[in-house]
């Protein structure tokens, strides 16, 4: 079974530029998450989707971050304009959600490492 796919793996941009990350969850998983992990810290939830609807985006800095999951499958996370403090690994995760049996496990992708100069 294919895992969670993310791209790009690495991205270096200058502050005030824009960047987009893409995630394809495990097939059939209804719930998709974007986490931000700053070096040395735990993953911080940015946004949670159930199918194509937003369940929670309370921690998403909406003045610069946006995310969508238009068809309830893959998702994009965009940052515009980027700031130095956005340097982090952006982790996408998925789980069956309401579509199946949940064991509490989130399946993570390899992450997209962003460096803002």
């Amino acid at each position, binding site marked *: 079974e294919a895992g969670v796919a993310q791209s790009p793996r690495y991205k270096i941009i200058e502050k005030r530029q824009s960047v987009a990350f893409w995630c394809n969850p495990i097939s059939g998983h209804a719930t998709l998450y974007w*986490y931000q992990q700053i070096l040395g*810290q*735990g993953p911080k939830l940015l946004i*949670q989707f*159930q199918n194509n609807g937003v*369940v929670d985006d309370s921690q998403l800095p909406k003045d610069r971050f946006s995310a969508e999951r238009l068809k309830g499958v893959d998702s994009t996370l965009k940052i515009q304009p980027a700031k130095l403090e956005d340097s982090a690994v952006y982790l996408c995760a998925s*789980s069956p959600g309401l579509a199946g049996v949940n064991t509490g496990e989130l399946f993570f*992708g*390899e992450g997209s490492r962003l460096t803002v100069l």
Partner: protein
Amino acid sequence: GQQVMQIPQYQHVQEGEDFTTYCNSSTTLSNIQWYKQRPGGHPVFLIQLVKSGEVKKQKRLTFQFGEAKKNSSLHITATQTTDVGTYFCSCSRGTYKYIFGTGTRLKVLA
């Protein structure tokens, strides 16, 4: 918002020594999960605990959920170099929403 604190933040042990990390919440948890993240890798699920006082074992790893469901621990017996990484607890808050702890970074000296 709900915070989940882990102690210690770092732990260096000699290979063969035991290791324990603790996860503490200010509120009662419905369940708790544990993850391991290798350096440069992504979090990998280890286990979920749901019952008060629950104890589960996976080879050299022992997981425990407190009686009051406000704390949990992960104990590794006789650490090996393959145990190196950061161990995170997480808890659900709302419908399939998971909040991660601060993590404990384990270094094993050969």
